[in-house]
């Protein structure tokens, strides 16, 4: 993937670039909003990672400008401002996701991958398929190897999210945000319990587990 990093903190930008490059991406860096705007206009990127607060032109202004010009590249905002209002303002400006600093690197990579993937699936799907697993979004049914799996509504949503991001690491925070729409970190392992329930339904009795735990990151659904 080609990733544009617009971040005025050089050390943070370098660490990000190194990590993303090691994960197999090609990165371009810009140190402020104006530089970022020029880079975004010049190049084609799969994802832009944009710091909200920067000299010259802040992240929100940058994305507003790009969106007005018709640029639809997915944007992940990074910000030290984590309150509800800040997040809403970032998303309203045209950001696609919002990550509050400081973050775990696994979280950043998972979100960048999720954003890039989202772009690929342009058409509306009524049927999701990951390996042996099939989900009918209209009939609200799930089958594995042709055998129907009975899921609670929330488990269905959870699996849908995992299937849409199959092959990618998905963090607990992402699940809490995207499936439950809560933007806080519980002190207890609530998500793990939900995942293990889902796992017992889709993996139990089958020869190969699909729902994997990724150490230090979260979970991944493999085909």
């Amino acid at each position, binding site marked *: 993937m080609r990733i544009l990093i617009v971040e005025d903190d050089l050390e943070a930008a370098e660490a990000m670039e190194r990590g993303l490059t090691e994960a197999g991406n090609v990165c371009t860096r810009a140190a402020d909003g104006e530089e970022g705007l020029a880079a975004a206009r010049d190049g084609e990127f799969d994802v832009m990672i944009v710091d909200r607060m920067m000299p010259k032109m802040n992240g929100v202004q940058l994305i507003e400008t790009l969106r007005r010009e018709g640029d639809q590249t997915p944007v992940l905002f990074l910000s030290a401002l984590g*309150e509800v209002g800040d997040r809403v303002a970032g998303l309203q400006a045209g950001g696609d996701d919002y990550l509050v600093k400081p973050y775990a690197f696994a979280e950043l990579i998972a979100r960048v991958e999720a954003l890039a993937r989202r772009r690929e699936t342009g058409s509306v799907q009524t049927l999701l398929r990951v390996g042996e697993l099939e989900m009918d979004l209209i009939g609200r049914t799930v089958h594995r190897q042709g055998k129907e799996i009975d899921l609670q509504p929330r488990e269905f949503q959870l699996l849908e999210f995992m299937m849409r991001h199959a092959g990618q690491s998905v963090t607990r925070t992402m699940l809490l945000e995207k499936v439950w729409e809560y933007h*806080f970190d519980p*002190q207890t*392992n*609530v998500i793990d319990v939900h995942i293990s329930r889902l796992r017992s339904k889709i993996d139990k009795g089958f020869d190969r587990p699909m729902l994997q735990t990724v150490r230090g990151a979260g979970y991944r659904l493999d085909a």
Partner: protein
Amino acid sequence: MRLPRLFRTTPFRLTLLILILFASAASAFLAYIYVATAGEATRRTDQEITREMHSLVAAYDRAGVDAVNQSLIERAASERPFLYLLMTKGQKRISGSIEESPVEKFTGAPAWTSFSVTDQDAQGHTVKHPARGLQQQLRGGQILFVGADVGEDQAYVDRITRALQGAAALVVVLGLGIGVLVSRNVTRSMVGLTDVVDAVRNGDLGARAQVRGTRDEFDELAAGINEMLDRLERSMAGHRHAGDAIAHDLRSPLTRLRARLEVAYLDVEAGKGDPTQALAQALEDTDGVLKTFGAVLSIARLQAAGAAPDPVLFDPSELAANISELYEPLCEDKGIDFAAELSKDLQARGNREFLAQALANILDNAVKYTPSGGAIMLRVRRRSSGEIEFSVTDTGPGVPDGDRERVVQRFVRLENSRNEPGAGLGLSLVAAVAEAHGGRLELAEGPGKVGELGPGLRVALVLPRPT
């Protein structure tokens, strides 16, 4: 030289200004009265003298000096005689009731003069009376003086003048007096407020203005200042406590983190040991510190804002249902019996996200402290007062009565739970959320002791009746 405080006050200056305006108006008024009374008396006397003079001149014109003398004789018997003097051209006395003319330099033109006559009163004392007179030359060259004793008129004028002076003095004294009184009154009210401001400036945030219950603007100002100071003091106390608490709760994990890194560094330097474990542990410690930090920030922001942002009307039972859906599997996993009792058709006003987080924090705590085999009950209901109550009751060890107040404070964790994970900010954040909604957090004993379980804790987040 500095004026005494009283004279420097705005009300006193205003009073002085009004006094000056008032005194000017009073002077004009008094001057008119003077002209209309005392001036009138003098004018009347002058008219009488002129009339007498005309009648004598007419007599002279008719029949000469003799006619004048005849007239003077006739008039001498009247009740209020004029003063007469008839003189030759060379100013030698011919006849009259006075010896010589009070007019000093007579040029021949009619001349008015004021003088005084000596008289004897009833007791035989010599008294001087003021008098006025007119002297004029007759056609034959003789000179005639007609005067009148204006003693009575003058006394009348003097009385009026004295009365007017008195009135003027009264205006000034009363005005000043009222000015001083008003200033003192206003100043006393202001001094109280100024003293409070001074005290606060000198660092005494506990100073409060006296509210006298008069409901005037000073009372309103005093009440406003007091309310402002209350909030300021609470906020300052919060910050001070937060400072201590942050130092306390961040310092220990940071110290641990540092020690761990140092040991790992020394081990690696000595060529022994695997740094991976130390690094993983260090990362975990860092996350803990960051979580604490995030919670502190949330609390600080809520307290600084004073009100929850973006409040909306919502169904509190629906919010609770969503949260219980999140926590139910966790309870089941831990062998805790979870139940929810959610009243229907309720409405509450607030920030859903903060309230969801608060509820999650309460449940986190309940799950953390309730042992396997215990129970947790989540309930949403409307109190008879109209307030909306979210309550979570558990069968954990509970919190002793004396400690309940304390656990709500920031960072406080009871000693015996120090080794449990969590920053100890859970209930403080709940309290901050409740306060930001104009509500409160209540802790009470749970269902009581049953065998190994209990007595439990009942945590209630109470929101005001939605308006």
